[in-house]
């Protein structure tokens, strides 16, 4: 565990001197937190009707009957943005993780590191956690800021209940870390196979595509996320994560990495 901790501290000390990483860990969560708040603020006066009976039935189904049509619209629009809190743990670690192996390759620091008694599992775990922890913490912090901002803007318990229903709690606190694991390990896999950090980042960014599909699926009304879907999604993610963690360790071939350095 001491070695894993050492790798985490080393990674943080190193990557947080990289402006791109700092940008992705600080600016992106701020931006992704601001967007739903802006939506909430912009839609705060939308529709004054006391009931939601004037809403189209397929739309009204999504809202609790206690909400007015304006509040329902506000909840609906802001909920579309909530998926950003699932994107954060996917996007933020890409920079850190993609840099983690290729960066070591380019600075030629991987060989002395691999010459220490550290095991591949310890090294990959250290690099995993070093990329995952800031991403998950930044997401949760952003979500916390969003909750406070939403209360200040909305000032209505019914809307708050609708906004922070268990589905989004599951999405942020369960699916979020699982997405981060997927993203980090995919990036590490890519990173240990390519020689250029930029290529690693670009290839690793592919991991966001399935989530974008969910985002556009929901915004276009193709389907709507609910707690069951998120639970199912998390279960599938757990399964995929186990696979990618295993693959990341398996694909981290010390010999291949060392001998194919260019």
């Amino acid at each position, binding site marked *: 565990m*001491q*070695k894993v901790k*050492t790798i985490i*501290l*080393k990674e943080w*000390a*190193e990557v947080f*001197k990289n402006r791109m990483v700092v940008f992705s860990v600080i600016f992106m969560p701020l931006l992704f937190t601001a967007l739903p708040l802006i939506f909430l603020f912009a839609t705060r006066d939308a529709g004054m009707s006391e009931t939601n009976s004037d809403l189209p039935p397929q739309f009204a189904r999504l809202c609790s009957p206690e909400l007015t049509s304006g509040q329902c619209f506000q909840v609906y629009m802001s909920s579309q943005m909530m998926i950003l809190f699932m994107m954060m743990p996917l996007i933020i670690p890409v920079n850190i993780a993609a840099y983690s192996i290729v960066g070591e390759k380019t*600075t*030629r*620091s*991987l*060989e*002395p*590191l*691999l*010459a*220490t*008694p*550290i*095991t591949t599992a310890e090294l990959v775990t250290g690099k995993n956690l070093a990329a995952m922890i800031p991403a998950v913490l930044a997401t949760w912090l952003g979500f916390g800021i969003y909750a406070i901002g939403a209360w200040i803007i909305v000032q209505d318990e019914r809307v708050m209940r609708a906004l922070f229903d268990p589905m989004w709690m599951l999405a942020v606190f369960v699916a979020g870390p699982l997405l981060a694991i997927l993203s980090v390990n995919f990036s590490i896999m890519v990173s240990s196979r390519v020689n250029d950090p930029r290529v690693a980042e670009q290839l690793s960014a592919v991991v966001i595509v399935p989530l974008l599909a969910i985002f556009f699926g929901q915004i276009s009304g193709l389907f709507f996320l609910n707690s069951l879907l998120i639970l199912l999604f998390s279960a599938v993610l757990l399964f995929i994560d186990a696979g990618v963690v295993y693959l990341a360790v398996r694909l981290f071939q*010390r*010999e291949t990495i*060392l*001998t194919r350095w260019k």
Partner: protein
Amino acid sequence: MIKIENLTKKFTATLAVDRLTLHIPEGEVFGFLGPNGAGKTTTVRMLTALIGPTSGSAVVNGFQVGQQDTQIRRSVGILTESPGMYDNLSAEFNLMIYARLYEVKDPKAQVEKYLRMLGLWDRRQDEAGTFSKGMKQKLAIARALLHEPRLLFLDEPTAGLDPESAHLVRDFIEDLRKEGRTIFLCTHNLDEADRLCDRIGIFKTHLLVVDTPERLRNQLFGRKVVFHLQSASEMLAASLRSMPFVHEAKAIDNKLLVTLDDPEVHNPHIIRTLVGLGAEILFVGELRHSLEDVYLQLVKNA
């Protein structure tokens, strides 16, 4: 300390190391010489358990390569071809990382010891990226020593260093030798190998020869003694050639160049003969071939 038997490494179509057999006892400084691409770094990587052999076996510090790799990595120190420091981190932080990875008992004290020993203590808070090549190399040597390994692999320790830094590094290696550590030294610097190594191995995919620098010189070129005379002649050379222990004698300018096995034993006899023949000897010296001559000759023949 190192026992290698028929160690072979093949990369797809390339045979990098071919049936290397070598024994290196404790406390020896062994020079591993060879041209670029000869397989020296591959050998070091196999012996430090960074990559696995294709066939053959090696025991390093009592641990079997390919089976007890973690124990090998824990027990040896390695200076890689490139220092590979974390340029954004301070010198001290760089070493602290490795001290912890090598599970050093008192990492802080050990880091301080080597930073002071290598004259880097005052720059400990500076980023390694701001260091000169020589300072980075010293930092990398400190890194290799943090866990006090008895066996050290040094891959090109003075490559690219200015003469002053190279001298400093060589002196440090000399100190390590005095401490009784075993050193496996890969170098292109033949003068360095000549000065530091107890034995050298010349390697080009397979081991061409292993011996002490002195014996290699003697085997290849014999021992040559130069007699500087007031006036040398072919007649004097012919007289020396008739002696049973003289392999060759040539008159060149005012010198007689004599090849023989044991100058310490036979020189007095030669001197008496020359004086008897009326030669006036100004002085006598041994013509010493450089290790470079030995190396070039062996690599060319290979």
